[in-house]
Every structure is written in structure tokens, then in C-alpha cells.
């Protein structure tokens, strides 16, 4: 099994990139909806802001699960050590830890829409 596309370094911080994108989109979407006075609007029968935020969060979680899952499989396939690169072991661990952190951060960011009114 060969990792394609990502360099190891990019792979290691991919979780952070997903988190940053999630943060930006959630922030921007909430601000735009409230600025446009659409606090009461709905999307497929759901209130707009929670629907967008929870949808983006689900997407983000899927993304970090894919990234983290791949790192996990590589770590346990023994491939990394076969290649004899300690670097690679390290970046795989880093990738895994970072995706877990990103997942937690995205969940924390999404919780408020379940509890607070969307536009203050």
C-alpha cells in the first residue's frame, strides 16, 4: 500500500488544515446568515445555522477520519518501519494525534449551535 498525493509533512498537518477550513467556513456561514437577517430560515426543514454548522462538522469529521485512518493503517502495516525511516513513523503518529485533536476541536466548535440561539 502506497500513500499517494500527500508528502509526509503535509500528511502530518492535514488534520489541522481540515480544522482551519471548518473554522473559517463555520464562522463565515454564521456571520453571513445573521447579517442577511436569515436567523429564522430553514434548510430541508432544519434551522439554517445549525444545519450548515452540523453539516460542515460531519464533513470535517469524515475528512479527519479518512486521514487518521490511513495513518493508523500505515503505522500498523509495518510498512513504515520496513522502509527504515524513523521520520516516517514520527509523521504518521503526528498525523494521527493531530486528526484526533482536530476532531475534538470541531465537535467543541459545533456544540454551541445545539444550545444557543444562532444569531444572539
Amino acid at each position, binding site marked *: 500500500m502506497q500513500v499517494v498525493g500527500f508528502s509526509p509533512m503535509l500528511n502530518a498537518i492535514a488534520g489541522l488544515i481540515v480544522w482551519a477550513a471548518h473554522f473559517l467556513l463555520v464562522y463565515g456561514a454564521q456571520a453571513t446568515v*445573521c*447579517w442577511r437577517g436569515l436567523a429564522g430560515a430553514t434548510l430541508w426543514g432544519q434551522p439554517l445555522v445549525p444545519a450548515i454548522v452540523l453539516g460542515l462538522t460531519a464533513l470535517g469529521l469524515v475528512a479527519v477520519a479518512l486521514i487518521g485512518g490511513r495513518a493508523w493503517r500505515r503505522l500498523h502495516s509495518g510498512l513504515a518501519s520496513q522502509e527504515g525511516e524513523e521520520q516516517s513513523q514520527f509523521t504518521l503518529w503526528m498525523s494521527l494525534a493531530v486528526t484526533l485533536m482536530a476532531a*475534538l476541536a470541531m465537535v*467543541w466548535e459545533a*456544540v*454551541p449551535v445545539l*444550545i*444557543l*440561539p444562532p444569531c*444572539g
Partner: protein
Amino acid sequence: MNLQSAMHPAGPDGERIAALSWLLFGGGGAIFVLVMVLVLVAVVGGRWERRLLGSRRAIVVGGIAFPVVVLTALLLHTLGLARAIGLPLAGGEPPLRIEVVGHQFWWEMRYPGTLPDGGIVTANEIRIPTGRDVMLEVTSADVIHSLWIPALHGKIDMIPGLVNHRRIRADEPGVLRGQCTEFCGAQHAMMAFYVMAQTPEDFAAWLDQQRLPAAEPDRPILALGRQVFGAAGCGGCHAVRGTEWNARIGPDLTHVGSRLSLGAGVLENHRGTLAGWIAGSQDLKPGNRMPSFAAALDGQELRAVAAWLESLK
């Protein structure tokens, strides 16, 4: 005393926020002590203790699981509190609406619906009846400001083009102080205001008084003051209801004599400070949007206009 202290709350929301502060101080203190004890153990402890502290399990439990659990619990607790702060309190009556507009470097307060054609407008003080929900609807006329009455509520940003809401409520009559808490320019630090919580009867009486147009001058010096006000061009920036002046660049002065302070909390309010402000507003609050009139008015004119403004109770 304690006019402006989040640790001395004066209403139900302030109390909730103060309780959260104490939880944070207590919890943060306890965790700090715990960590210091562990540091001590790591330094002076025996081999067994030190091995335990350095174990993978200790790191996973103490360094990852513990913070995640504590921070998650705190997040949920805080969000629940934020929700409670937004909900209407029992009491039946619909909240009293007050619009607050931030200006560099003063506050405009409007009470919509208190006059047949709109509402009264005052500046740099919020009067509220005790025991009733008050909905502040805040925005800004220029840059971003932030409104904070520490004894009553958390900060609320005032953003141009956007109206933010904050419910407040005071339990007891008394005077509190608020402050701009978003840097907004040279005189940001001198952008304060007073909050006067009054019994519903006193509040109603104050409102009735504010509904009246400005009092007509009943003495020659007051009549001269009114004349000076027009001649000096003050009416180009200020409104005085019941006169020909209705500009909105500066504070509404219809009842300026009844206010607790001048210049957004900079000076006490009486004839002397009024004259001082008019003559030297740029010395008292450099960079504010009102020119000094020391050179434009002679002593007699200055005394007269200050006396007239003082008479506008």
C-alpha cells in the same frame, strides 16, 4: 463603591457570571496546586513515584483525558449559562426596549415609543426600572465599540450595520457604571456611562420629565444663553427638543442638566463643569468630536450658555 465590578453583581445575570468566575478561580487554583504537588513529587519523590509519573498511562490520563473531560464539562456548563442569560426572566411584562448607539467617544440612548413621534433621546446614561427585563439593542454609528456594565452582564459588541441584543435586569435601585471595552480611538478610555436603576415609580416620573421639551428660559441670563447657543453654532451638532435645533452629531441636550455626568463620564455635571467643557473640551478629552469654544465665546457668553444648559433639567 463597586460601581463597576463583575465581582459585585447587581442583577440575576451578573450573579450567574460571578458564580462562573468563582468556579474558574477555584477550579484553576485547585488544578494549579495539583500540578505543583506533582512537580514536587517528580523532584523529591522516590524511584517508584517517579516511574509512575513518567508512565505512558499517567500521560494519557493526566495529560489528555483529564483536560478533555474538564474542558468539555466547562464548555457545556458555560453554554448552558449563556443560554439562560438570553432567556426572558419571569415577570410577565414585555422587556423595556432601549437602543444604544456607540459614537466616538460617547453613547446615545434612545427609548423608542416613549413619544408620539418616536422617543426620547439621552446620552451617556441608561435609566432602567428595577425588577423588569430591559432589552438593550446596540449598534454603532462609526467604528466597533463594546458595551459592558460589569455588575449586570457580559460584554456586547456594537457593530456598525448590525444590531446586537442583550437582556439586562437590576434587582435594587442604585447607580452603576459601564465602559467601552473595544478600543475605538484616542478617547476610548474616556468613554464611560452611568446606569441608574430606579424603582418603577421613580423611573416613570423620570420618563415623564424627559418627555417634556426643553424648558423655556425664565431669566435674562438663560435667555442670553439660549441665544449664544444658536449664535455659536452649537445647534449644528446638537439637538434640543422644543427648539429649532435637531442635529444628531453630538449628544441630545434637551435635558442635559438632569444627567449624571458630562463627556461620557469625564466630568461631574454642574454649571462650572459645563462651562469648562464648552471652553476646553479638547483639553479635557483631546481628539473628541467637539471643538473647544474658549476663543469663540467671552466670559459672559460662556457663563450664560452654561447656565442655560444647566437649567435644562
